[in-house]
């Protein structure tokens, strides 16, 4: 009787101890993370003003100025990246969901896409440098866009596949039963039904590459002046944040915080939208 009650007491005590540890771990994780988030919001809000969006950077040491060229530059880069990443990514997603289901090739492609998502972005930048910057002989927004685009392809492919798989088979069968050619059925019916999900998946990939800095360091390079030329070096928001944050000027630090807030706002909107669309389900969002 003595050993049994010790044993059960020991087990109960262990259970309570581990529960406490798990709660401790949760608090240790969530509280600092929320603190980081709130700190970013406060520091960014302090520095954000209209000039940030409308003015170009001023020379070092002077106060004022904004990051207008970086915002526009990011927009150009993301435009090029989306033009490359979205069509090919959705195409790969369509293949995985519609044509390749159950095949070994599709499994291999899916696996490779997942693995590619974990490759550091600086490697993509190196590949774009080698592929485009070296033959052209100069840095350019185009090479930066290509680096970001090839990062988008695996992400968009996986999310598109996921969304397309959610479309019930009855819809596909109905379309084919009405005499639609297969390609029409896939494009006009299945993809259209899943389009809210696919679009938000693209948005998620978009938000992810919007914050990438490393691939741009030696492809787009950065530009202190206003530029939208794809053949010239171009500034980008995360790139500018990096340069300012690692510099010694207080005014630049202030601008870096404001830029960080803009980026975070973009991320929060994208993630929230994805969750909202995912919770509504695919069919309810069909046009």
């Amino acid at each position: 009787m003595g050993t049994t009650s010790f044993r059960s007491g020991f087990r109960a005590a262990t259970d309570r101890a581990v529960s406490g540890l798990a709660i401790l771990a949760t608090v240790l994780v969530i509280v600092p993370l929320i603190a980081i988030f709130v700190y970013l919001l406060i520091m960014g809000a302090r520095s954000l003003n209209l000039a940030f969006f409308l003015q170009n950077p001023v020379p070092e040491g002077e106060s004022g100025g904004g990051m207008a060229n970086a915002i526009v530059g990011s927009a150009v880069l993301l435009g090029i990246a989306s033009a490359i990443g979205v069509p090919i990514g959705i195409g790969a997603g369509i293949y995985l969901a519609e044509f390749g289901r159950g095949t070994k090739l599709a499994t291999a492609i899916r696996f490779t896409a997942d693995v590619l998502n974990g490759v550091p972005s600086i490697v993509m930048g190196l590949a774009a440098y080698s592929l485009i910057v070296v033959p052209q002989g100069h840095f350019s927004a185009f090479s930066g866009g290509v680096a970001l685009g090839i990062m988008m392809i695996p992400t968009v492919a996986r999310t598109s596949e996921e969304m397309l798989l959610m479309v019930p088979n009855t819809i596909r069968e109905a379309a084919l039963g009405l005499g639609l050619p297969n390609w029409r059925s896939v494009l006009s019916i299945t993809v259209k039904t899943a389009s809210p999900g696919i679009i938000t998946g693209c948005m998620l990939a978009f938000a992810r590459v919007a914050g990438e800095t490393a691939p741009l360091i030696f492809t787009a390079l950065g530009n202190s002046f206003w530029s939208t030329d794809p053949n010239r070096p171009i500034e980008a928001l995360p790139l500018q944040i990096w340069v300012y944050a690692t510099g010694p000027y207080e005014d630049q630090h202030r601008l870096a915080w404001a830029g960080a807030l803009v980026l975070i706002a973009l991320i929060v909107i994208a993630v929230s939208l994805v969750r909202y669309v995912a919770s509504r389900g695919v069919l309810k969002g069909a046009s």
Partner: protein
Amino acid sequence: MPRSEDSAVRKFLMSRGNSAFADRAFHALMVICGLSIFGIVLLILSELMLRSGLAWHNFGLHFFFLPPAHDSNLGQTGSYWDPVNGHFSALPFIYGTLVSSLLSLLIAVPLAIGLAIFLTEMCPKVLRGPLAFVTELLAAIPSIIYGLWAVFVLVPLLREYVNPFLVKYLGWTKLFVDDNPTGLGYVAAAVILAIMILPIISSLTREVMTAVPHSQREAVLALGATRWEMIRMGVLRNARIGIVGAVILGLGRALGETMAVTMVIGNTPEISKSLLSNGSSMASVIANEFSEAVSDLHRSSLIEIGLALFIVTIIVNAIARLLVWAVTRGTPASAH
């Protein structure tokens, strides 16, 4: 129906032709898009191997463990990484990457698994949604923003409070010697890496734990187990392969993390025993030096480091994904 006189319906259908060509073309186009994934891997591999040829030719495999060059001018050992004299050894970067990543795992893994256990087994339902949303949000925050926070908040914190504490109480291990107290170094890098990989390890662990069928939990409870025993025997034991996979995935992310590490690791191509000293990682040296590299050998050496990073992260990620897949049985996982 007489063959000589086709019905109007038949005439209509036959006049429309069929879509065989369009179907085949569409199918082929989609296959090409799918194969582009392989194309990307091959592209990166071929470009990196092409450009690192010069460094490979000069140093061979020794590139990864060359000792510091002997500096004949000053009569002392030079540095591992000397762009001026053309001596390039990747050893300090491999050391820095390994130290910062493994240290970050040490910090992150217990916390991530604790968080996952709380969220799947113990959390009241009303909290589960918001907490999961917060974790997902934090996984999506770009590296540069973590780096920004680390430079302005974490490093001063370490410099003022944590590092002196470590030196005072753990200095006897010779691992915590702070000759140059800036707050930068392996510890700073490890902490910010831990914060960054925590959401990934935690959410993947949660996915793996949720994949364990309820019957396992119920069976253990029916035998009279406490809640922790149920978690340990019913869930963790079944999910442990997947949890290992989640941890390895976190390691993969930590190995390749560039911006946040570059901003806090100190960027000194040296090998030091002390965890508080400055160092450098493979990704950080590329980010720092590439746009200013003058000689072809310098650039080629950096690209070779990039190639090594690429191969290592591919292998690590592949192993991790296989392990996770083994538990969740290949259901399309959400893109992490």
